[in-house]
């Protein structure tokens, strides 16, 4: 129709895209436009639907409704190859490359130029790789082995790989997460070059300074819904934060009357050479203390060292005002601290083991004498705690691997409660579970606190942090940057501190 003005229209447009997973509407009628020669920042909290969107754009998920347009034609991407064929490519947070192949081989893996005999045309491959690398200003030998390159150079190779399919749309999903300041600066220059070449870029980031440095446009998602879009030049950081966190917190959290007891834990001056420094805080019985921050802010790393898995270079732990030295997880459990790690599939239950053995595993000291287990006591312990958590299974003899995910989680929680802890650290306790299970975990957390347990909750979900915590500590880049409670606990303050934005 109006082919003259095509270059002004979006290179890629999503219209009313919907994607539902069992129990969750990940994307609800969202829209997005990516324009040639412009960077569009996609902004949203965790769970806003950004990753789902990227997976739809790259052919990994299929939308349930809506349409994708490349130029004026409607397209769909049944497979990742189809998305690539339409010139869409993504550079992921963890780049997927092969250490033992050369740079050129990495760039052309899967679509290498062939000779007429069907063999890989190494000479052409090397020449083309060199052209692409030169095009983005990267001084990398195409015949170098990837293993010998630094992280930043590997990133450039990943970007070259994306460009090798002649992409018109480049998706960058938190590309700066693992880069140093200098490398980030080089990445900015590269993005500018890609813009100059007319590529449409989708830039996903949590860091506001980056967004305002390189983006031309923004699109805001919240809870799977489109909120707003526009030009970056016409909006302020504060307004963007406002749109991102919104006012709506539809989730219902258990009502609690926190009864703060005596101080149970005091952490003084925890330092680690590379992960965190100057961590000080106290914790009381019956309190839920939230730890908020962006992914990679050092919260889990600190918790792991508090639990004795890694060793801080400096720091004192006081439990009930007694200095307690925790050198191993066993010592932490002994001292009354337990840690329920983030990835329960990997770090929670022993799947081939029966339920009762899983529940008693961390309390074997109590159910055994001189190294011999007293089976009757072990069974009694397992029965008590599985009943408390309302775990229904045919028999406590059942291997945990045969249970549903929710029940496996109950087994893990039962295991920790059976140790009769004073402090329980829950790392992202509701990550990746459906809303019903989330509510169950929240109720349970409230119950723990009501029983006088001190709870530390590491979470990246603002509604959860605000809904559950009595007090919130915000970490950024390995340091505590704020401690807020009462009326100061607003989405805006948390995001500001976590992202390092000055007061508006």
């Amino acid at each position, binding site marked *: 129709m109006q082919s003259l003005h095509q270059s002004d229209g979006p290179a890629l447009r999503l219209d009313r895209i919907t994607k539902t997973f069992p129990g969750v509407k990940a994307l609800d009628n969202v829209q997005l436009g990516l324009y040639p020669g412009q960077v569009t920042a996609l902004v949203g909290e965790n769970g806003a639907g950004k990753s789902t969107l990227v997976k739809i754009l790259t052919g990994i998920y299929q939308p349930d409704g809506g349409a994708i347009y490349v130029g004026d034609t409607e397209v769909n991407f049944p497979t990742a190859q189809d998305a690539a064929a339409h010139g869409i490519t993504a550079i992921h947070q963890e780049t997927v490359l092969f250490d033992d192949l050369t740079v050129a081989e990495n760039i052309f893996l899967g679509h290498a130029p062939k000779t007429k005999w069907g063999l890989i045309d190494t000479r052409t491959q090397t020449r083309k790789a060199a052209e692409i690398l030169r095009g983005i200003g990267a001084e990398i030998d195409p015949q170098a082995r990837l293993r010998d390159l630094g992280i930043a150079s590997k990133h450039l190779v990943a970007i070259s790989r994306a460009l090798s399919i002649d992409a018109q749309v480049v998706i960058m999903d938190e590309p700066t997460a693992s880069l140093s300041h200098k490398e980030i600066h080089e990445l900015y220059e590269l993005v500018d070059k890609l813009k100059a070449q007319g590529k449409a870029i989708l830039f996903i980031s949590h860091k506001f300074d980056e967004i305002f440095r390189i983006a031309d446009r923004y699109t805001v998602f919240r809870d799977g819904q489109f909120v707003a879009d526009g030009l970056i030049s016409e909006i302020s950081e504060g307004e963007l934060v406002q749109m991102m966190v919104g006012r709506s917190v539809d989730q219902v959290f258990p009502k609690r009357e926190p009864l703060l007891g005596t101080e149970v834990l005091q952490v003084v001056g925890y330092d680690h050479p590379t992960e965190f420094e100057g961590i000080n805080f106290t914790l009381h019985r019956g309190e839920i203390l939230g730890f908020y921050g962006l992914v990679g802010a050092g919260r889990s790393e600190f918790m792991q060292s508090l639990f004795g898995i890694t060793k801080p270079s400096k720091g004192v732990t006081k439990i009930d005002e007694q200095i307690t030295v925790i050198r191993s997880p066993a010592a932490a459990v002994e001292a009354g601290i337990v840690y329920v790690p983030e990835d329960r599939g990997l770090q929670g239950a022993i799947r081939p083991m029966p339920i009762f053995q899983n529940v008693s595993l*961390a309390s074997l000291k109590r159910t055994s004498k001189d190294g011999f287990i007293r089976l009757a006591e072990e069974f009694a312990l397992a029965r008590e705690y599985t009943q408390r958590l309302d775990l229904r299974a045919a028999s406590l003899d059942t291997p945990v691997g045969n249970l549903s995910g929710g029940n496996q989680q109950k087994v893990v929680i039962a295991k920790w409660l059976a140790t009769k802890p004073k402090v329980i650290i829950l790392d992202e306790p509701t990550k990746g579970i459906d809303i019903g299970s989330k509510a169950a975990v929240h109720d349970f957390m409230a119950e723990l606190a009501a029983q006088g347990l001190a709870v530390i909750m590491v979470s990246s979900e603002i509604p959860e942090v605000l809904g559950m915590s009595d007090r919130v500590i915000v970490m950024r880049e390995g340091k505590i940057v704020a401690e807020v409670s009462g009326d100061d606990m607003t989405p805006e303050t948390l995001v500001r501190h976590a992202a390092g934005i000055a007061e508006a």
Partner: protein
Amino acid sequence: MSILKSREMILTGAIVVLVILIATRFPAFVAPSNLAAVFNDTSPLILLAIGQMIVILTKCIDLSVAANLALTGMVCAMINVAAPGTPVVVILIVAIALGALLGMFNGVLVWKLDIPPIVVTLGTMTIYRGIIFLISDGKWVNSHEMSGAFKAFPRAVLLGLPMLSWIAIILTIVFFVIMTRTTLGRAFYAVGGNPHAAVYTGIDVGKTQFWAFTFSGALAGLVGYLWVSRYAVAYVDIALGFELDVVAACVIGGIAISGGIGSIGGAVLGALFLGVIKNALPVINVSPFWQMAISGSAIIIAIAVNTRAGRTKGRIILKKAEAAQ
């Protein structure tokens, strides 16, 4: 649990069927005295399979058991030659202690230096064999050089069974108790079942693996003395390649190579299955080459069966499927 139990039942059934099949060709095979002889002959394999099973449970493997056995056996034989009056009890203690020490060496390398177990034990396998050559100058210790008491111990008959068989029976019971009733036994399962979870529970993964290698070594050392005294000969190459039979017995017995799954009963039955095959095939005139092929097939079939049993059946989403369960 029910899967494990049924797996042991399947294996028992397979052994019974095998014995009956052999009996149709060669009835004398099922005479109680012959079955007792087969058991006695399989006893060393049973003992080593128990040790290997513990190691495999913790996601490791011990390829050095046969070399450990040979080295400990040679040391025992040389002590006997040098001091023929040494009581058998002392020899037994030396054998177990030296074996345990050799196992600990494997364990320390795995625990403290984080070297993959297959590499560690492949290395020590060669080292231990080499040490035998060094201390013996490659010479044999023959029957006539050994004292009567030294040779008599494993053959001494008690209540109708030789000492060797009794040791296998008693240690099977001892290790059954260790594996099912002690915190250490529980730790072996936990470490192999999910090492990450074990760490958060306060179990030291490396240390647990160290103890597994120590048990395996101690058992190999004990078998070293029994082997040398029973066959009345010690030289560099005794039990050469036997570690493969030991691993095979474990695999046939349903011990998962990926760790965390297995039982003492399985290891013993796996060893017995191999023992019956090895003893029966020559009797019914099957050529040694066919024997190897048959043993090999048994291993592959056992793994195939285990893999099928271990395959996840998908999630239960349908209501009727849940009700059916």
